């Protein structure tokens, strides 16, 4: 196992980042923040252009004759029911982020935008920006990565590796071997850091929920450490058993809880206000989404460009960090579906769900700020992790809903870590779909250590910049494998 140089270098690299973070958390956060600042200033335009082109490519592929091509052999049938498939891909792609940012993100944008316009327009634009971050652009990154992996794995019989399309299309040459090797390494690195961030976000969310339930104030790192330990213990067992059916059950449970929360808040909150906001935001989103993908805020002041970098660009690279992991996962569960069915499912359904989710949780927050003067902006500024729970505390049955949120966050993090350990192990052993248990446990430990680093940083902004730095190089890989797909599709008879 340790004769594999890719595995050794990947383990060393991620291990060193984890060690650096444990020894000097502030130093790592400072370094990541300054490096991502430089990268975002110089290459922000490129990230937005690349992601927008991926959206346009997905739309074109879905409506083109290539949409009829099956991801698999022509007689392959889908392994999972459509509902189970959608639930799993959504849980893998967004998961705990939805619970964390549901109210916090729209209100954070509102807090900046209201300095430039009136409150009502600021709320509308804040909801649009949030939907933009979680909608078609995010899912286009996942969809394209997953499509390339599924096409080459199931239709061309290649190993499930990021490097496989490059070697399959351009042959076994020195440069393809070198670029392929580097792509696999960058994919492993991006996944590991991205999941570390997700663990931290999940722990922050659960910590706030537990504080809210037990009436604790600023429990500090000890509670985070306890939650982290329980989390680590919880994902050891799933790493040791076959994950296919178990993961589907865990994902479906987490999504069912999230769905129930959504419906509860919709019905228990100001329903007319929420539904009006959702209806408005659907129109607003689809009218502006494509042009907004090319928006880089070049002529705006420092405050706006800094907000753009710390939100829009950070989210886009966040999705890029998750792309190899979610892409492989989506690919694995999408065998037997046509490209059209795949793209419509992966792009549209999660986008509508996100619009609905942020419409519900965001507009409950706006109702508090604009209609009843609730102190929600103060909560957002003093403890962003508590924003969702503050909203839940204003509604009936708050103990039950807070417990449900904590449970869903816990399940989302466990499913993410288990799936990511599986994908990382698969990459590290050359694309074998059944990687050894020992390998999965090693990756589980590394992911835990990276999660611990991000928890120690005790700041969601530090988490965002550490992920940003790890994921930026992956934009090049996504574009490269997209070219591989386009070249391969040229030889299909449609």
């Amino acid at each position, binding site marked *: 196992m340790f004769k594999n140089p890719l595995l050794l270098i990947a383990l060393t690299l991620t291990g060193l980042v984890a060690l650096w973070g444990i020894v000097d958390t502030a130093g790592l956060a400072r370094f990541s923040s300054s490096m991502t600042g*430089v*990268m975002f*200033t*110089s*290459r922000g335009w*490129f990230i937005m252009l690349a992601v927008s082109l991926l959206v346009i490519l997905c739309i074109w592929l879905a409506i083109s004759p290539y949409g009829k091509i099956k991801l698999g*052999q022509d007689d392959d049938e889908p392994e999972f029911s459509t509902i189970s498939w959608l639930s799993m891909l959504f849980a893998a792609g967004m998961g705990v982020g939805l619970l964390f940012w549901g109210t916090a993100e729209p209100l954070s944008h509102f807090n900046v935008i209201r300095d430039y316009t009136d409150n009502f327009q600021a709320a509308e634009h804040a909801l649009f920006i949030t939907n933009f971050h979680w909608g078609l652009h995010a899912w286009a990154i996942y969809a394209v990565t997953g499509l390339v992996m599924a096409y080459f794995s199931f*239709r*061309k*019989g*290649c190993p499930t590796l990021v490097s496989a399309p490059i070697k*399959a*299309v*351009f*042959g*076994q040459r020195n440069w393809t071997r070198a670029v392929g090797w580097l792509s696999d390494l960058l994919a492993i690195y991006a996944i590991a850091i991205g999941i570390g961030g997700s663990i931290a976000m999940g722990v922050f969310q659960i910590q706030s929920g537990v504080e809210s339930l037990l009436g604790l104030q600023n429990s500090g790192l000890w509670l985070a450490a306890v939650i982290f330990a329980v989390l680590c213990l919880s994902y050891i067992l799933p790493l040791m058993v076959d994950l296919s059916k178990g993961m589907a059950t865990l994902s479906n449970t987490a999504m069912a809880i999230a769905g129930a929360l959504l419906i509860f808040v919709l019905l228990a909150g100001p329903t007319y206000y929420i539904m009006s906001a959702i209806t408005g935001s659907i129109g607003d989103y689809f009218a502006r989404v494509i042009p907004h993908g090319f928006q880089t805020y070049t002529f705006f002041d420092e405050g706006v460009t800094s907000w753009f970098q710390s939100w829009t660009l950070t989210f886009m690279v966040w999705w890029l960090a998750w792309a190899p992991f979610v892409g492989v996962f989506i690919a694995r569960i999408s065998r037997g579906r046509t490209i059209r069915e795949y793209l419509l499912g992966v792009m549209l359904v999660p986008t509508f769900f996100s619009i609905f989710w942020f419409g519900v949780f965001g507009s409950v927050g706006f109702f508090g700020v604009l209609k009843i003067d609730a102190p929600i902006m103060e909560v957002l500024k003093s403890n962003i992790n508590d924003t969702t729970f503050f909203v839940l505390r204003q509604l009936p049955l708050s103990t039950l809903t807070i417990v449900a949120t904590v449970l869903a966050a816990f399940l989302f993090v466990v499913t993410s870590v288990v799936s990511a350990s599986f994908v990382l192990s698969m990459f590290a052993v050359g694309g074998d779909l059944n990687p050894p248990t020992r390998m999965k446990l090693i990756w589980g430990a590394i992911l835990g250590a990276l999660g611990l680093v991000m928890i120690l940083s005790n700041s969601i902004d530090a988490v965002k910049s550490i992920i940003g730095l790890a994921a930026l190089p992956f934009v*090049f890989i996504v*574009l*490269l494998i997209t*070219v591989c797909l*386009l*070249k391969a599709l040229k*030889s299909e008879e449609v």
Partner: protein
Amino acid sequence: MPINNLIDTLLNIWVFAFIGFLVWLYFKKESDGNKAENQKSDRES
């Protein structure tokens, strides 16, 4: 300031070169050996 400009220029030259590389890869004709290899792998799958 000049050092920032230099870094910005270098980072973007890399991006332009990469875009050029992608365009070249897309339009590059496959060699016969490579084509045969791909067809063989298609047949096997």
